[in-house]
């Protein structure tokens, strides 16, 4: 099957995709995806856009292991991970609903996925908390933070996993425009410094355009369009995450 996003000019075709959906279908009644194939090359930023109910979130949840597809498969670095449990997929996922653990404080949430708690990790925690503007919240309970703060904590928790693939589902929707710009700039730097592959889901394409290498449009569970090479200059890449 032909992959719509497989024409990246940068990565040789022989390189295994950081993530690839191959003909994935899933029907949950209200939401469904049908025969969706998307390839994400290493270091690539792919935006999935579409209206509410287009199936964007389902796609991410299938990749992260929250849902099992009805048919098709998901490849990670060339390995079929369709039936792997979530803990073995090595994918950092920031869901739309944050899914912070309400019985833990902010710091424990941020460090939940980190096994070793050495000095380097603590420095990284401090650095990420500073960059995301949540350093003052570390001792706070989850029920005492705002929606925007929760989104930033969920993002920080995913980044602290130090993985090379990040899935973002409307992860800044509750932020004001200025904070969104700051987070976008921070993610652009993270991506460059760690050769991070990013799949970002958003319902509005304006902000997404500025960071994405590939924009994939979905409608009613199907892939309807993909656009490559949309990133034009480093300046334009900064900010504007959707």
């Amino acid at each position: 099957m032909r992959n719509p996003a497989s024409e990246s000019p940068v990565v040789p075709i022989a390189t295994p995709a950081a993530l690839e959906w191959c003909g994935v279908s899933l029907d949950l009644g209200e939401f469904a995806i049908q025969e969706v194939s998307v390839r994400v090359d290493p270091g690539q930023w792919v935006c999935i856009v579409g209206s509410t109910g287009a199936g964007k979130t389902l796609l991410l949840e299938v990749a992260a292991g929250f849902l099992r597809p009805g048919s098709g498969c998901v490849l990670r670095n060339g390995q079929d991970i369709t039936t792997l449990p979530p803990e073995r997929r090595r994918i950092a996922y920031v869901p739309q609903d944050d899914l912070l653990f309400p019985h833990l404080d902010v710091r424990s949430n941020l460090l939940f996925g980190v096994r070793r708690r050495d000095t380097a990790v603590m420095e990284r925690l401090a650095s990420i908390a500073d960059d995301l503007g949540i350093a003052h919240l570390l001792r706070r309970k989850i029920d005492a933070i705002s929606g925007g703060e929760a989104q930033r904590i969920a993002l920080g928790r995913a980044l602290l996993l130090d993985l090379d693939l990040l899935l973002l589902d409307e992860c800044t929707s509750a932020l004001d425009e200025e904070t969104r710009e700051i987070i976008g700039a921070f993610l652009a730097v993270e991506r460059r410094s760690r050769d991070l592959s990013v799949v970002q889901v958003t319902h509005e394409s304006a902000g997404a355009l500025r960071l994405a290498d590939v924009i994939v449009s979905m409608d009613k569970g199907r892939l309807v369009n993909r656009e490559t090479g949309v990133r034009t200059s480093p300046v334009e890449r900064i900010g504007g995450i959707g």
Partner: protein
Amino acid sequence: MSNAAFRSVFLVSLSLLVLFVGLFLGAAFLYSGPERLIRVLTEPAALQSILLSLGTSAIATLLAFVFAIPAAYALTRWKIPGRAFIDMLLDLPIVLPPLVAGFCLLLLYAVLERAWSGGLSGGPLDLRFTRPGIVLAQFTIAAPLAVRVLRAAFAEVPERLETMSRSLGAGEARTFAAISLPMSRNGIIAGIIMVWARSIAEFGPILVFCGAVRGKTDVLPIAIFLAFSNGELENGVALSALLIVLGGIAIAGIRRLGGEGARLA
């Protein structure tokens, strides 16, 4: 009917019911004054019954939760073949008349005895008419009740949070220990109180399986039964009052903790 009349009818019903329950529970305290109650409850025989009840019900509750926590979690989260049948089987001891549960326990021993050609009788596993047998009799009701309460507690933990934990690299065991268990803590504690309260009030299975032997198997309900049977009314009243107080404390604790336990209490 006007709003005022409608409300009056309902509030009168509520008042009558509260008055009735309050009076019949309070009768034990009205019959004997506090001095007599305290005097009877501090007698050696009563203290022995109290300690025996507290000890056996605590052990039975502990054992019930050791088995019920994994069982309830498995039933709540995993697709287990025959789950509906297992659910029904585990609920049966709760709805059975307690005497029948005790009788079934006795019959189990009879069947085992027959299978082992009489090798069970008098051995360390023969718990009939013994104090460990009281724990077993309490356990027969406590464990299924604990499974029922815990299932409700685990079901209140959003499954997506558990999947998120696993997505962050935690396996099933760590997810259970770090997410499921602490997040259902209140439900578990409320369940422990409820199961303990039920165990300490258990009568039927103990009477059938362990008998009513003064100084040996006379937990509080058995002691009350013996007291009334032998015309020792004051002793029976005092021990009944104690059980009412313990029940009240248990319900207050469960309500304070909230969760499914509170709804069942």
